[in-house]
């Protein structure tokens, strides 16, 4: 057995360098916030302190010149997307979808959701784009993932990466939250926009974190609509669209994706942009996009994924299709 006095020096060192638990907790939160901010930002370049100042200055001047040349503002595509009125756009979508009845799901059936699009990964140095496909077989009772497959193709490297994806955890019991909706919950949603807004704020609170209530609802639709859209009764859809139209800070533009006329609704909070896409003809949810303000303009080049355009501030865009399939079609 070790003589305690043999560790005396270690104990003293531990003591003099120990930090109070409450200080550590505060540090943990601040470090986490720093990490989140850096993950959301392009790669940081840390200047080495030993570099002589004059050399650093020369390098900086040259680098700024080169960077300024390379990152000069790329011309926007001819004819910027026309801005449309948010409330009117949502109303038109609700009208277009008013004849669409919700699908019915049999006892032996599940929802199959395919998300297909392009992602920009700024955590790689240099940033890369990937063709992203995410297949989900979801139990309609809580939209619980039963099987997930993710495909990625790095567009700068001709490698197809197929992997089984971990099943993401979902909060709460089925029907308690918009992220874990059930057909019964969806059918029972309010048809009054004000009541719908209350349901939305309550039903997205769990995953809201420290974002605003409005952003929590808006972001929560990315979880809800891919699986729930086809189950929405027309009156519920209308109330949902009207409730969403009241979110402050939304902008709407008309764009084209795969020869389809699409309405893109966008909201920015903390420099993060969240976009929801709706098919103008059917009035239904089509997909999502995201991005961040202040990123380098690497996405100014045309999107290499057919029919999925990107924009300067939209660096990820995904089109979603949802169908009902038999349970025995889930791949083993």
């Amino acid at each position, binding site marked *: 057995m070790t003589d305690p006095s043999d560790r005396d020096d270690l104990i003293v060192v531990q003591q003099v360098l120990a930090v109070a638990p409450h200080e550590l907790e505060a540090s943990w939160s601040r470090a986490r916030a*720093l990490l989140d901010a850096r993950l959301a930002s392009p*790669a*940081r370049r840390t200047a080495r302190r030993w570099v002589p100042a004059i050399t650093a200055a020369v390098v900086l001047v040259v680098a700024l010149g080169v960077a300024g040349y390379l990152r000069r503002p790329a011309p926007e595509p001819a004819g910027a997307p026309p801005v449309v009125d948010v409330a009117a756009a949502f109303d038109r979508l609700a009208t277009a979808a008013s004849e669409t009845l919700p699908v019915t799901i049999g006892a032996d059936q599940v929802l199959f959701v395919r998300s297909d699009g392009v992602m920009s990964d700024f955590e790689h140095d240099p940033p890369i784009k990937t063709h992203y496909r995410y297949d989900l077989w979801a139990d309609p009772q809580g939209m619980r993932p039963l099987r997930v497959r993710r495909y990625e193709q790095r567009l700068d490297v001709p490698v197809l990466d197929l992997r089984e994806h971990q099943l993401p955890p979902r909060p709460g019991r089925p029907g308690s939250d918009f992220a874990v909706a059930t057909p019964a919950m969806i059918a029972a949603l309010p048809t009054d926009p004000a009541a719908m807004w209350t349901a939305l704020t309550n039903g997205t609170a769990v995953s809201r974190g420290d974002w605003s209530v409005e952003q929590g609802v808006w972001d929560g639709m990315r979880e809800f609509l891919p699986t729930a859209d086809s189950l929405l009764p027309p009156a519920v859809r209308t109330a949902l669209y009207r409730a969403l139209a009241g979110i402050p800070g939304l902008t709407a533009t008309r764009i084209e994706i795969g020869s389809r006329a699409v309405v893109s609704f966008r909201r920015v909070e903390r420099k993060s942009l969240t976009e929801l896409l709706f098919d103008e003809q059917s009035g239904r949810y089509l997909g999502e996009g995201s991005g961040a303000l202040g990123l380098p303009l690497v996405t100014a080049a045309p999107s290499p994924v057919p029919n999925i355009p990107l924009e300067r501030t939209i660096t990820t865009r995904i089109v979603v299709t949802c169908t009902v399939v038999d349970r025995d079609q889930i791949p083993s």
Partner: protein
Amino acid sequence: MTLHDVSRPVDVGQLFAEHAAHLLRYCRGRLDAEDAEDVVAQAFLVAHRRRDHYRPGGAGVRAWLFGIATNLIREHRRAEVRRLRALARLPAARVWTADHAERAVERLDGSARGRRALAALAGLSRRQRDVLLLYAVAELTYEEIADAAGMPVGSVRSTLHRARTKIRIALEGDLND
């Protein structure tokens, strides 16, 4: 856990949840709060960006993270030494004991011994201080320290022995006062 097994949006969060408290305790022991938090955040960012270089066969994710953090701390070496010397000059060294059972040790004239230990720490070579604090504060194994510090296990043992000898001599000087 290998970093290849987890999806991109999740892995750095999981890594942070599992290891950040441990890493912070080590970095806060060596640096002021602001620098320590910067180092820890940057360590996870570096780990995330270099996850394709991580080889699961080594001493583990923990050693890998501490290695990255220790490298980052080297950029703060002068600040670390200044801080240790400043703490050593304080009238009563700031002593925090997480385990109340260890307060018996604290009663052994903790402040005077602490000041001597701090001064001795400031006088160690960078490598000796890295190895000693990875052992004493981070509580890594010899193998993990070897991986984190990029040196053979035998060198870890000898470096640690020399560092501890210096600290002991400083503490023994206290008995002669």
